[in-house]
């Protein structure tokens, strides 16, 4: 936990405000680049993929870009076969799939109504992290959320150069 420290121009606390760890999703630099690259290369359609790592620690060490079988600029469906392959591959690496990423081509990096509905089916894992990438503007914007019982909560995203696996 990072402590707030004194030191602003007027002596007020600045900068390092504590953030509860459960609202932080850390991505390795490699994963961050892979996600953005896959989303950009999917244009004009939405792109998607699965992320693996340690769910409790909120750390993503591995990413599995997948085909969007919906092949749409407004919808995505992770290729079911690639999903199974990713699940087995993650297990081999001693990791588990802890979420999904996908792009929004013309809207904010915020879960759509469809995203929230799909995150709330009986088989949806409430521990999953949902990474959204908006490609609306010149620079991609990446944000992350937890979606539990239809409730959307944003998490801070940290990109770590030497993140632990």
């Amino acid at each position: 936990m990072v402590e707030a420290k004194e030191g602003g121009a007027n002596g007020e606390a600045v900068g390092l405000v504590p953030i509860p760890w459960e609202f932080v999703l850390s991505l390795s630099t490699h994963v961050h680049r892979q996600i953005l690259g896959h989303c950009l290369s999917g244009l004009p359609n939405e792109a998607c993929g699965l992320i693996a790592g340690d769910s409790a620690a909120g750390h993503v060490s591995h990413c599995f870009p997948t085909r969007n079988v919906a092949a749409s600029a407004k919808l995505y469906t992770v290729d079911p076969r690639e999903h199974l392959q990713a699940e087995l591959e993650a297990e081999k690496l001693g990791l588990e799939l802890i979420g999904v990423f996908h792009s929004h081509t013309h809207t904010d990096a915020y879960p759509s109504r469809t995203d929230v509905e799909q995150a709330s089916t009986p088989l949806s894992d409430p521990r999953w992290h949902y990474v959204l990438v908006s490609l609306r503007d010149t620079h991609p914007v990446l944000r992350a959320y937890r979606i539990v019982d239809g409730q959307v909560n944003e998490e801070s995203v940290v990109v770590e150069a030497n993140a632990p696996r």
Partner: protein
Amino acid sequence: MLKKRRWRDRREDVVPVEVRLPTVLRPHAGGQTIVSAKGGTIGEVLTDLTRSYPGMAGQLLTDDGSLHRFVNVYVNDDDVRYLDQLDTKVAEGDTVSILPAVAGG
């Protein structure tokens, strides 16, 4: 010869298979990732599974007995939606996997 084959076919109707569970269903099976179930088709395997683990009932099949749209079921590497859906046959030693369908907008 013909009789013998018929006898074998009947014997092969119901076979034991391994079923790989998605994370949210594991607590219904005492935390196990892989469980055993029996059947000649995917539909029968899923029915047997919910018989053994009643907590899973309603989470895989709809009231009219079809596969929920948010569920992916595989025989080995293949998605049963591209095979014969719930009528897809299983053979002894096959692995049936269940995963959530991941989609959105």
